[in-house]
């Protein structure tokens, strides 16, 4: 470190971060020279906890990995369990799952747009977007009974049906969302101060994005058309016509535009689902004490933030033997570091927020002693004792 450089810690508590995570910035004046991320502030041991719960109990635990992509995680989990069970779920349930997933995408992307506006100091846009986001929140509540953590997918189908007499009302609400989103797209693409703060900020090159295995809108903003809904179709995504949105440039404006356009695509998918909702039952029977045969499954789901990968290993019985989750934010962190380097301090919040980080979904914990070249893990009790000893030292 030279004389002119100094370190700025961003996080674990910082207004630009909604969740605890630490980034150590080496800055020279207003320029960022280097970044060092540190994960692991909010590890909750969900994977381990799942091994001691039945499949139905896990349904509600897995939903609580993340408040915003709860439906994506749950969908991925049910897909895994159904694959091991060899269960084929009714068509109607598939359409309702897709409908929920896309509603959740709309809600998440609108939330992100508001946050992005807040990070560049444009609070007025933030308030307006969040006001209009209430429409999709109301819609989610009408469909599922909840604003977040909808608990819609269950093993064998979905828990609640979409009543046909409500469909015109849902469509009207989707129409409002479409109109408002188009307006915000115009604002984002024309308002000069937004352009000042987003064009050419936090640029990620296409080659770097692929090399650092970025995913989701973070990757699509660099012009790479990768989407798990198209590449590895699940549910009924292969029957629904929709476009994969990509923008060139890889800067923050591209991130904004990708997400705005994805909201518009999602509205279209939702409308398609409502129009083509097949008749029939909404779920297959699966008993709360149901047993799952030996086997393993891995599934990809395109969550709002990118590709969500779940792996299930069953050795028979009513509990999973091993469950592994890779939330999209973890895959996005290396490319985030690349985006942050060489920018201004003032651009840190918007670039950090740019990947729509959800660190709590991501966190994992392994102890590594570099000097002794040893890695180990601890149980909750050991960790607590270790903490007490550390502070008493």
């Amino acid at each position: 470190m030279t004389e002119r450089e100094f370190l700025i810690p961003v996080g674990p508590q910082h207004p630009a971060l909604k969740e605890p995570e630490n980034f150590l910035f080496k800055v020279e004046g207003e320029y960022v020279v280097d970044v060092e991320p540190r994960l692991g502030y909010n590890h909750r041991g969900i994977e381990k906890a799942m091994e001691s719960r039945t499949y139905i109990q896990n349904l509600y635990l897995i939903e609580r990995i993340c408040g915003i992509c709860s439906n994506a995680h749950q969908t991925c989990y049910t897909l895994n369990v159904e694959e091991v069970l060899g269960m084929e779920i009714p068509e109607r349930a598939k359409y309702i799952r897709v409908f929920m997933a896309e509603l959740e995408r709309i809600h998440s992307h609108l939330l992100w747009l508001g946050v992005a506006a807040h990070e560049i100091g444009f609070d007025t846009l933030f308030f307006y977007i969040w006001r209009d986001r209430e429409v999709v929140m109301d819609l989610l509540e009408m469909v599922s009974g909840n604003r977040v953590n909808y608990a819609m997918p269950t093993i064998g189908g979905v828990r609640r049906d979409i009543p046909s007499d409500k469909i015109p009302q849902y469509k009207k609400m989707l129409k409002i969302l479409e109109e408002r989103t188009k307006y915000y797209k115009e604002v984002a693409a024309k308002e000069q101060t937004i352009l000042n703060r987003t064009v050419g900020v936090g640029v990620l090159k296409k080659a770097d994005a692929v090399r650092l295995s970025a995913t989701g809108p973070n990757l699509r903003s660099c012009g790479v058309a990768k989407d798990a809904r198209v590449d590895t179709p699940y549910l009924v995504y292969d029957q629904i016509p929709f476009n994969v949105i990509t923008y060139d440039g890889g800067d923050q404006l591209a991130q904004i535009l990708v997400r705005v356009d994805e909201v518009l695509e999602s509205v279209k998918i939702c409308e398609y689902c409502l129009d083509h909702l097949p008749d029939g039952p909404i779920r297959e029977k699966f008993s709360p004490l149901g047993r799952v045969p030996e086997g393993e499954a891995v599934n990809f789901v395109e969550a709002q933030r990118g590709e969500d990968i779940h792996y299930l290993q069953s050795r028979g019985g009513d509990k999973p033997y091993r469950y592994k989750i890779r939330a999209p934010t973890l895959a996005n962190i290396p490319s985030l570091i690349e985006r942050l380097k060489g920018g201004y301090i003032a651009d840190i919040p918007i670039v950090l927020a740019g990947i729509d980080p959800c660190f709590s979904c991501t966190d994992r914990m392994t102890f590594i002693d570099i000097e002794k070249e040893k890695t180990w893990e601890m149980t909750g009790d050991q960790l607590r004792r270790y903490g007490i000893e550390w502070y008493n030292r």
Partner: protein
Amino acid sequence: MVQSIGDIIQIFVFPGFLFLLNYALFAEWLSRKFAARLQNRIGPLHTGWKGILQPLADSIKLLAKEDITPSAADKLVFYATPIVIFALPLASLLLIPIQSITNLWSFDPVISFEGDLILILLSMTIVILSIFLAGWSSSNRFGAVGATRAALQMLAYEIPLGLASIGPAIFAQSLSIKKIVNWQIESFTSFLQSPSLLAIPVWLIMATGFAVFVICLLAELELRPFDIPEAETEIVGGWQVEFSGRKLLLLVVGRDIKMVLAAALLTSLFLGGAAGPWPIPPLGWFIIKTVVCIFILSNLSILLARYRIDQMLYGSWKYLIPVSVLQAMAVIALTGVM
């Protein structure tokens, strides 16, 4: 003796400290409520009528909070700067004509002398320097970044601010705010009696000066597009990150007073001060005009996203300073004609 009691009332009660402090809190409520309505929110609601006592409640809360001084801070500067930031704008407001306590229809300032405009501009500069010292002395990294940003930002708007306020002073041939106000009243009344075309360029120049002054005041008050030194999402409050309790209270109220001072300066230099048609006394006109100025400032502050410091400096030196220089040159040329 009567004279001195009058002075004491003028300085401490009306239109001095007591009135100004209350008015500052009112101004904060007003700008918050106004911005909230524009942003489709409700704003303060529960304390008093439509939340009018919210700034007071916040102040009392801050008084009760723990006052922490970082052990690495430069103690003397850390203690002194909040007081300076609070006291200087308050004292400067005594130079602004608001309302005389002896005559209902006159609005002599408490103190007035040739050159008090310069004194106000000087005190505003000292406040910014104190902000720099406050951020620097707190020994916080975010504080240091915020402090350097405050100093850099000062380079951008201090010059146009001075040039824009010089315009009315040259027209009035005086550096005293009272005389500038009197010149505006005289020229306006003479215009009403015998309208002449010469008034149009004067008004155009004054309007340009007003616009430049408003933009500079947005930066001076650290309002939205220029809240770079304290950018909450970027550097966590910047220079004031380490202040808490009573010191933070002084900073918050000092900022409200600065807002009133800004509105009062706009009123006195460009809008004819506390003067106005008959049925409303000068105090009423002062409040009406400053409220309009506060509306203008808070409306502008919600319209735009925050600039980056380099963009702010670039924009200021490329557009704002040339405009203000042209404005000052036009004033000089026009006074030669007149």
